[in-house]
């Protein structure tokens, strides 16, 4: 993202005459610290990490290169493969459900219901909590001796079993529930803002043409809200990639390694196992996977507009 915008500005600079270098000089001077931060911290840090992922650095970074050895080990490590599977499962489900639930809630609130402010506050409130707090709260809710299972059993259904956090097969769904609870509120508010931006006349025209409410949403409103969906998509995607603290608070990767995620692997191997090279290789793979998803999308999104 940041790369692309910097390419845009540099191209613009070349197109204008050199005198323009001094135009708005104070604004340009003011932005130097940010430019330096972006270059040194983000680009520089990334390059340094990628370079050191080809070394056999242990506790301290060193430059004895070993080629792709760290990557070979990474891709034969069971824990890394499990982490990727988990992230893919969580990512796809979280993306779909966040968008669907977020939009549905927003559409319901948009029907000019009574007490909209109250509902909006309730739905948005979980977003104010950190992932750690969310994780601990859901750990209690999903605990078989304290939470949902206990409540339902004490109501009379003695054989009711709901214990996702201790079952390796469904533990990721337990994490997904907590993640959705925390994240959908924000998406709902963004969708609601988008819905409010739709001109009343569109609705009037649809009504005159006799198009039903649901059909109007699907056929007319949603295509008009494309920029809103793009924003929501970016927010959700970045939340998925950095999934870490929710897992740490809820299960700490357990039972066994059933709910491990890539970010946790990186931290574990960099600091606990004192194997920087392995951690860097894993974080480089995370960067590559983000790039694989983002670059084609950014190309479609921004490349098309420039020509048009």
């Amino acid at each position, binding site marked *: 993202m940041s790369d692309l915008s910097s390419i845009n500005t540099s191209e613009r600079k070349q197109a204008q005459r050199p005198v323009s270098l001094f135009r708005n000089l104070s604004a340009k001077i003011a932005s130097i610290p940010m430019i330096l931060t972006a270059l040194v911290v983000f680009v520089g840090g990334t390059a340094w990490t990628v370079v050191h992922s080809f070394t056999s650095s242990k506790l301290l970074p060193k430059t004895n290169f070993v080629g792709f050895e760290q990557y070979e080990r990474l891709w034969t490590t069971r824990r890394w493969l499990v982490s990727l599977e988990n992230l893919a499962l969580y990512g796809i489900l979280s993306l779909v459900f966040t968008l669907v639930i977020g939009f549905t809630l927003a559409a319901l609130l948009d029907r000019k219901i009574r007490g909209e402010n109250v509902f909006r506050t309730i739905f948005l409130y979980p977003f104010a909590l950190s992932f750690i707090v969310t994780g601990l709260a859901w750990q209690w809710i999903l605990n078989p001796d304290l939470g949902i299972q206990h409540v339902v059993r004490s109501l009379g259904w003695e054989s009711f079993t709901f214990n996702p956090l201790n079952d390796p097969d469904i533990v990721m769904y337990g994490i997904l529930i907590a993640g959705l609870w925390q994240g959908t509120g924000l998406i709902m508010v963004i969708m609601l803002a988008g819905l409010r931006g739709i001109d009343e006349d569109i609705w009037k025209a649809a009504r005159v043409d006799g198009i039903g409410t649901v059909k109007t949403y699907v056929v007319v409103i949603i295509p008009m809200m494309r920029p809103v969906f793009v924003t929501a998509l970016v927010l959700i995607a970045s939340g998925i990639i950095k999934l870490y603290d929710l897992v740490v608070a809820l299960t700490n990767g357990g039972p066994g*390694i059933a709910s491990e995620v890539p970010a946790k692997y990186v931290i574990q191997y960099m*600091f606990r196992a004192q194997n920087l090279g392995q951690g860097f290789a894993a974080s480089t793979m995370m960067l590559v996977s983000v790039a694989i998803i983002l670059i084609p999308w950014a190309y479609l999104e921004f490349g098309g507009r420039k020509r048009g």
Partner: protein
Amino acid sequence: MNRLAKIMAGTFLAGAGAAHAADLEVTHWWTSGGEAAAVSEFAKAFTENTDHNWVDGAIAGSGGTARPIIISRIIGGDPMGATQLNHGRQAEELIEAGLLTDLTELAEKEGWKDVVNPSSLLDACTYEGRIYCVPVNIHSWQWIWLSHDAYETAGLDVPADWNEFVASAPKLQEAGIVPLAMGQQSWQQNGAFGVLAIAIAGVDAWRKVVVDRDADAAMGPEYQKVFEAIVTARELAADSNVQDWNQATNMVITGKAGAQIMGDWAQGEFQIAEQVAGEDYTCLPGLGINEILDTGGDAFYFPVIDDPAVQEAQMALASTLISPDVQVAFNLKKGSLPVRGDVDLSAANDCMQKGLDILKAGGILPSGEMNLTPDTQTQIEDLMAEFWSTDMSAGDAQERYADIIRSSE
């Protein structure tokens, strides 16, 4: 001008005053009940016997949480005055980078070489002939703790070794008792595996695998028995769903579980619960099969700090930690064995006496931490975490274990 001069003079005086009595920040991860009581013995002795002050920097969580924090502070240029680490290969690179203080002079003056027993503890602190840490205690993993309460409930005699324990398990289960308490954390699962390996495969096979890192030996018939034994242990611990080690120990204390495989630090928990060794619980070193202890333990390292007052305080602390009285006071509370062979431990209980006798008889091994890098240890812990939470077969686990040993450095 006058006022400024006064302020400057005041600052200077305050600075000069601090040169005599330095505040020394000491980081450690001893936070459970028994551990905290033990570490306060260090603080008391240091503050009372020297001019300096102990500033406690306890970091909650296990060593796995605290170690990265400690190491990043040392690397990041914000070193503490002194810090606990497990001796072994964890600090190797910090020493190479010149970040830790050389204690050789003090060690020679006080003759540590002659008093530290077993001498392998000091060897673990030595890097290229120089000494960089003070060992403070000996901890060994090779213990199983048995609850008399549980066996009374089931109407059985307390077993004398691992095989008898396995044979008694069905009766315990009938009485509604979990045979084996096991915290669901990978370091505990890995620890139990290590203990079973020494007890069942025997010392020779263990040495070949862990010290010489011979992958063929890891695939051998001795280790096959070990992996079959942890499959059994996994079945016996199936109903134990606690997390922390002291919660698992508590299951043994309250008679909800028959036994726990855990290092001798569990002793501190029994002590706080006012249980008596031999009456309320039994401890079997080496699972009663192979009476041998590894000699892991804790040591203190002193990061290099460019301040003479702090350096003086560091040396004073190093000397305090290893002095005979402090060693006795600390280790009695901690439930561990002292690093000096020349102190009187008649106040120690049954279990500690057993440990001391084994040490005297020379039944010692270097600990896994001294032989394997944290990297290899983490890989084995990951394998154990997966093994204990799934129904992975003994054969698969053994093969993957051998792979890790083959690729280790």
